[in-house]
């Protein structure tokens, strides 16, 4: 297997996940937290795509000229995942607006503890 193309992808996945996680854990601003979550999501989507990748494969469209094509299922999965991620983000934004209306700030100071 040719790892030349795949390995950087895995590194990118790891980097995206770590960046996202760092953002979630360290940021106080809720908007930044949700942006970080989106970054993580992108990382996972990339992971799925990478898994389905077949070296030198083409798009999974039926064509007699090509016998080698990438795995179509992960791509379908990623499409679904992107849609879900989008809906979550949309909902999050809506909620942040209402959070801002209530608190006057997006800074998250913790609450409802113990």
């Amino acid at each position, binding site marked *: 297997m040719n790892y030349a193309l795949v390995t950087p992808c895995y590194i990118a996945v790891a980097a995206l996940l770590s960046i996202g996680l760092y953002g979630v854990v360290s940021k106080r601003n*809720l908007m930044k937290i949700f942006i970080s979550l989106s970054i*993580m999501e992108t*990382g996972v989507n990339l*992971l799925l795509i990478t898994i389905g990748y077949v070296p030198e494969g083409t798009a999974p469209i039926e064509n007699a000229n090509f016998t080698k094509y990438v795995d179509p299922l992960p791509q379908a999965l990623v499409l679904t995942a992107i849609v879900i991620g989008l809906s979550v983000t949309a909902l999050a934004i809506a909620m942040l607006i209402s959070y801002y209306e209530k608190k006057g700030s997006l800074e998250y100071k913790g609450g409802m503890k113990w």
Partner: protein
Amino acid sequence: MVVHPVLLIAIPLIAAFIIPLAKKYGFAIAAGAMAFNMGYAIGMFSYIYSHGKIYEMIAGFKPPVGIFLAVDALSAMLALLINLFAFINFIAIGKEWNYKFSMLYLLAIAGSTGIVLTGDIFNMFIFFEITAVASYALIAGKKDEKAIEGAIKYMVLGSIASIFILMGIALIYSQLKTLNIYDIAARISSMDEKIKWASFALLLTGIGVEAEIFPLNGWVPAAYQGASSGVASLLSFGPSKAAIYAIARIMMVIFPFHATYEIALYVGVVTLVIGELAAFMQEDVKRMLAYSSIGQMGLILIAFSLASQNIQNALIAAFFLIISHASAKSSLFLLSRSPSMGGAACKYTGIVGVLSIIGMPPLAGFWGKWYLMLAAINEKLWLVIMLVFFAGIVEAGYFARYLHKSMGNESKLNLRYKVAMVVMVSFTILLGLLPIAYKMASLPLWGW
């Protein structure tokens, strides 16, 4: 009769899409869909009760490629439970909200039912997301500060969870190129050892967030406290039960290894003890009930994790614990709307609920604890037994305090609320008394 479990998912989904088009009739459409679902779930359960398990291929694609539903006795029971309680709960609370609520409610129910019924791991993920997104919105629907804060907490953790689930699925897929859980189960031994464990850990963590297990349950107290009592009730019988069942299914079907059962056992025990202890000094009723739910989820997880050796006793225990917890806790959440337990209906609902959770006969909780003990003693898990006892005593302590504190004559609940509460809580009595325990013991609960 041929049963199509897919209708249980499809009908509420379709109804949910219709509702925005017919806003005026939102409540009626939702109620109708749920009534249908309830009836269909009852039919399906009785069919499985007499005929055994069902597989349903969606759109005729054959597994392992096609998406399919697999329904056994336990999942049929859970589907029945969720849809039944959803209907009752909806009738009690639905009219107080506008059509959006009905829609979201339907989505949450469809998602929960889907989690229970599906036999495909990616589908499970999708249903998780449907349930979760609907739940976020439902929690935030109360629109006060606490509700939104609870929803945001749930949302952040839920998003992380979904990322982990997806990663777990990706890892499995990368090795086996399949998403069907039975297909995975059949070929699990060919998986790379480390990736196998990593994927299990990711799935456990991801689903564990929804299943309220410690320490993934940071959102639970806030969300339950913030949500309106009807939504809290929904959360306690719907998504959380579906999620714990999903954990059990993944653990028992895909990863039936000693190590996984062991981890589930430890996690369950820690969840139980921490949840009950955290509830002990809690003054806010809903938050206390939320912590108590955490503890109960731990107990259910313990029951499932004992299934490696004593499958019959452990599954019956889980069955009864789920029933007891769902019926008691959701009625207690409904009750938590009233500041005190005024009137006979409220008073006895509270008492029966508490007694069932504590495990008094002839309520369902008693059978749960009895069979759990049978299973645990068989494996001589002394420390686990001691901790379960300790947690039970702590539980008795705060529930007694709760009963004392909420004693009073005030009752702000309307009739629909009361009826819903009483009906819900009567299930724990009914299932304790009817010979289901015996019958369940002779069923192939887990037939593959």
